[in-house]
């Protein structure tokens, strides 16, 4: 970088401040809830009060006829149910009608849509609708629904399983017969809600001029929503425009096609006015945003040094009542089977994985997806091995992690780990947490009677995996090349257009940094247009920690092509041959002469008479596609280390120290990486200690407000020390790796192991999240009873 202070230090790797913060921190963003259209009506839903029942009749008072809509109305108009099937062997298809079709399958399922001028009036109408139900036996417990179902949730199936699959590698039975060490754990991860700051919501309007539906919706994947909507409504895709405005966090919940989107879109298409639905927190908690709920039975076989020889496991994912679009109800369970081996190097493996239908809301892939549960299971097992062989937990990890000399490495389930030094992350975390000091402190005891403990959680996270991987899953969406458009404006600024969406990922900043890296344009002169099917190239959207890799690569590709075109024009203006000039700091240079991009733009747009005769007629606007060198994705990784204090009287847990040593490869913006890690850790602390969506035996959700659904607040999230390793990925444009989800993966494992370390002297152990004071208390009591 040569020119002035503004040109310095804003490219790849610069920790510049986020451009989007100016409006977001001042409350000047534009979210769905900020949008008002003339004549717009609000939707309130009549939602099922029962978890499993047949609908005998729906009665609407005469004064509200015309303001209440049911599936019968939609079906009559030809609307099709959402269908998210997978081609995975062992999976079963199911339909998800946007409004209940003769039967309800979970509490909160929308049965009728009510329209009025205000939401309150729409709720009045909803309260007047009377539904006559015939109750059916309810399936609440995951294992029971899988093995001894009380009723069939989807009648055409023989059981309540969306998917059952088995992954086998090596010969686990042979290992089981001869391994000297066997450790078994039953692990549960509770059902959670995602709780982004903004819930879901959408405004739908029909444009008579364009004959086009415009759905402005809080989504992570506008193009996929368009595809799903067009399929359900029988519209040409060109007749549907989906726009994601400012979106207040997604975490996966906004990476699905919502039944409410189909309903709102249909109403706007059918009626003569726009409609809006804004999800309230009660709807969010009870009806829609559920996630996780895993159970594992895992047996590990090891030698006397603690070397892992094989893993034999079963995993159950409670997928709820329906298969979500586009990821399907099977993806998370299939992921359990394929990623349970974690970052470890071993050869014998068997995992049976089940995706179980229950009378609960469908689960949605949540930051980390299956990895958070998987990491808890395998990391509790690693500590179990350490205990069994009498070694420190980190020593056992060091001999089992894939060593750097084996990179790139293909693991037991054929995952391609691209690069990194996994053991070094453990060594650095152990040093940063100062393990010897903690062991000494534990010997001394705490003056307040609490017990302290230290725990580790290690994982690697696949990100930006593409065509080959998703074709293998056989779901309604297979990502191919990611595209970006770069357009030099007549004044020398740059517009970038990408089809995915930024709602916390900081892409307005980081993609501008990528453009600056290639074109030298000041970040302040780069604008990102994103999240609008009418304005951007196709993209499957923002999910799977893919944006930095895919959009970063696509923007670089488009900017490079743009640079080539600029060089040809610039060379002509300098009266030099293209091979005689160089591009540097935003200008084409030859000898002492230079032509800045702004001048090249001026010439293309406003003085074309000066252009060379053989100028590329495509001009200064390029759409380019990008794929990493491999479809297998990058593998970022991290070691989390937690120190906790446990009150053995009450079971209360306090986090005293938290260290993350992570490897994002080359960081596009280290401050953004830190923010992603920190936000993820806060959510992971929620998973570990606070968050749980419980149900009673009738399938009634028991946490319908934040008084009952506990989230960590600022006082519950300790300062997190983040240390970076920076091993470039060999498969991406700049060596960057996807890290968006990672922070949320390891906290339950690290905190669970720390609690168990603290309880070791008492012989007690926790295995089920969240590790509430009551669960810790009960674990301690259980030991007392046994003795």
């Amino acid at each position: 970088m040569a020119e002035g202070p503004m040109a310095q230090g804003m490219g790849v790797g610069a920790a510049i401040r986020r451009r989007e913060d100016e409006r977001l921190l001042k409350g000047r963003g534009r979210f769905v809830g900020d949008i008002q259209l003339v004549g717009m009506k609000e939707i309130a839903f009549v939602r099922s009060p029962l978890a499993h029942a047949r609908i005998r009749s729906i009665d609407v008072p005469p004064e509200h006829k015309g303001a209440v809509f049911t599936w019968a109305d939609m079906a009559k108009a030809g609307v099709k149910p959402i269908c998210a099937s997978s081609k995975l062997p062992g999976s079963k298809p199911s339909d998800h009608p946007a409004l209940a079709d003769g039967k309800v399958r979970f509490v909160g399922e929308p049965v009728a849509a009510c329209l009025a001028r205000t939401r309150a009036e729409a709720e009045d109408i909803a309260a007047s609708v009377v539904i006559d139900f015939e109750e059916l036996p309810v399936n609440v417990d995951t294992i029971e629904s899988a093995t001894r179902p009380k009723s069939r949730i989807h009648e055409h199936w023989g059981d309540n399983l969306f998917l059952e699959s088995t992954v086998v590698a090596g010969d686990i039975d042979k290992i089981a017969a001869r391994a000297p060490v066997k450790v078994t754990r039953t692990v549960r991860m509770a059902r959670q809600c995602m709780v982004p700051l903004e819930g879901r919501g959408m405004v739908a309007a029909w444009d008579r001029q364009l004959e086009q539906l415009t759905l402005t919706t809080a989504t992570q994947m506008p193009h996929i929503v368009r595809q799903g909507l067009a399929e359900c409504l029988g519209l040409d895709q060109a007749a549907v425009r989906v726009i994601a405005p400012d979106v207040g966090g997604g975490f996966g919940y906004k990476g699905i096609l919502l039944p409410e989107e189909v309903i709102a879109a249909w109403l706007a298409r059918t009626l003569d006015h726009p409609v809006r639905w804004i999800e309230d927190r009660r709807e969010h908690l009870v009806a829609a945003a559920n996630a996780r709920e895993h159970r594992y039975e895992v047996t590990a076989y090891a030698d006397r040094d603690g070397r892992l020889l094989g893993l034999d496991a079963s995993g159950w994912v409670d997928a709820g009542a329906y298969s979500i679009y586009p990821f399907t109800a099977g993806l998370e369970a299939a992921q359990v089977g394929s990623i349970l081996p974690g970052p470890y190097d071993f050869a014998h493996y068997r995992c049976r994985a089940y995706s179980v239908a229950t009378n609960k809301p469908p689960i949605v892939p949540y930051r980390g997806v299956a990895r958070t549960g998987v990491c808890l299971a395998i990391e509790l097992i690693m500590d179990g091995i350490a205990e069994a062989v009498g070694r420190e937990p980190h020593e056992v990890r060091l001999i089992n992690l894939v060593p750097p000399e084996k990179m790139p490495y293909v693991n037991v389930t054929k995952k391609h780990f691209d690069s990194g030094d996994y053991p070094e992350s453990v060594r650095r975390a152990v040093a940063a947490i100062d393990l010897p000091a903690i062991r000494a402190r534990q010997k001394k005891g705490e003056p307040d009677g609490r017990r302290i403990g230290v725990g580790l959680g290690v994982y690697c996270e696949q990100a930006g995996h593409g065509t080959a991987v998703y074709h293998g899953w056989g779901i309604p969406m297979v990502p191919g090349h990611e595209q970006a458009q770069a357009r030099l404006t007549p004044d020398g600024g740059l517009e970038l257009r990408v089809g995915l969406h930024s709602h916390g990922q900081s892409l307005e900043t980081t993609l501008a940094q990528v453009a600056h890296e290639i074109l030298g344009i000041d970040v302040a002169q780069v604008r990102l247009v994103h999240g609008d099917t009418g304005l951007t190239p196709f993209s499957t959207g923002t999910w799977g920690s893919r944006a930095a890799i895919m959009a970063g690569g696509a923007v670089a590709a488009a900017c490079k092509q743009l640079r080539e075109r600029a060089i040809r024009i610039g060379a002509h203006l300098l009266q030099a041959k293209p091979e005689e000039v160089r591009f540097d700091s935003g200008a084409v240079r030859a000898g002492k002469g230079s032509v800045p991009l702004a001048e090249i733009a001026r010439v293309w747009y406003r003085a074309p008479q000066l252009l060379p005769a053989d100028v590329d007629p495509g001009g200064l606007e390029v759409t380019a596609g990008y794929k990493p060198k491999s479809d297998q994705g990058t593998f970022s990784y991290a070691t989390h280390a937690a120190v906790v204090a446990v009150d053995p009287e009450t079971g209360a847990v306090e986090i005293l120290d938290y260290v993350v040593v992570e490897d994002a490869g080359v960081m596009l913006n280290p401050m953004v990486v830190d923010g992603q890690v920190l936000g993820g850790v806060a959510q992971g602390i929620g998973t570990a200690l606070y968050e749980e969506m419980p149900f009673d035996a009738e399938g009634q959700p028991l946490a319908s407000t934040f008084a009952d659904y506990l989230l960590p607040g600022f006082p519950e999230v300790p300062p997190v020390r983040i240390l970076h390793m920076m091993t470039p990925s060999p498969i991406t444009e700049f060596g960057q790796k996807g890290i968006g989800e990672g922070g949320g993966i390891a906290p339950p494992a690290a905190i669970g192991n720390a609690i168990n370390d603290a309880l070791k002297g008492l012989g007690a152990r926790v295995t089920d999240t969240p590790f509430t004071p009551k669960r810790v208390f009960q674990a301690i009591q259980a030991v007392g009873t046994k003795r």
Partner: protein
Amino acid sequence: MKPVAFDYERPATLDAALKLLAREDIVVKAVAGSQSLGPMLNLRLVQPDLLVDITAISELTAIREEKGALVVGACVTHGQLEDGGYPDPTRGVLAKVAAGIAYRAVRNRGTIGGSLAHADPAADWVSALVALGAEIVVANPTGRRAVAAEQFVTGVFETKLEPGEIVAEIRVPALSPEARWGYVKNCRKAGEFSHATGAVLVDPARKFARAVIGAVSGAPIAVDDVAVAAEDPGEAWVAGRLADTPLGGDAYQVRIHHVALKRAIREASPP
């Protein structure tokens, strides 16, 4: 999650408010800070025809010292009590309790009288005012009556308030220089409602010694016993006190209530 349509009045005098609250032809609710009523309205758990906002009534918003007692108007917010700046014969106890209620945003609006009238067993004032031996002054169209704090809350969301009555003020006796106070809540996170409360006041000058077990899914349990207030009575004793509550027989509930009480007793013990 929007309330039903209701009318709203904000009278300037207590008499006017009581007149509105006495209407029997419609459902009338008094509202002050709306920190509990607001969510209940939105969830439609309460569907009033008329809300009577009592926060414009000046006599309900004052704090004064009277005959050695601190008299707190029902519409005084937790935040005002937290911030001090009033003559305080309670030696900072009310400020300390107030500072631990929920979050500052809640304390800015939530009122002491509203919290008492709502009578959530887990609420701070419900237990703390019993331990302090406070009196709740209730206003009705015929005048006023005082109810001892330990008599006021009778169950979950149940009080001695009759229809048409509201809490007018709270009288908290002065603490002597020898008085010792202990107050411990069990919360899973900052700002959460208490799962178990222990509150203890020992004031030799007044010959007052009271231990309170609160957040028991019913009226707080007050024990006037110098021995209990001075020394941990043990888990079995607490289990006995909880036996007749919905928490009886739950080992975890017994444990956390015992620990809260024992730690409050320790706080109230001479160093």
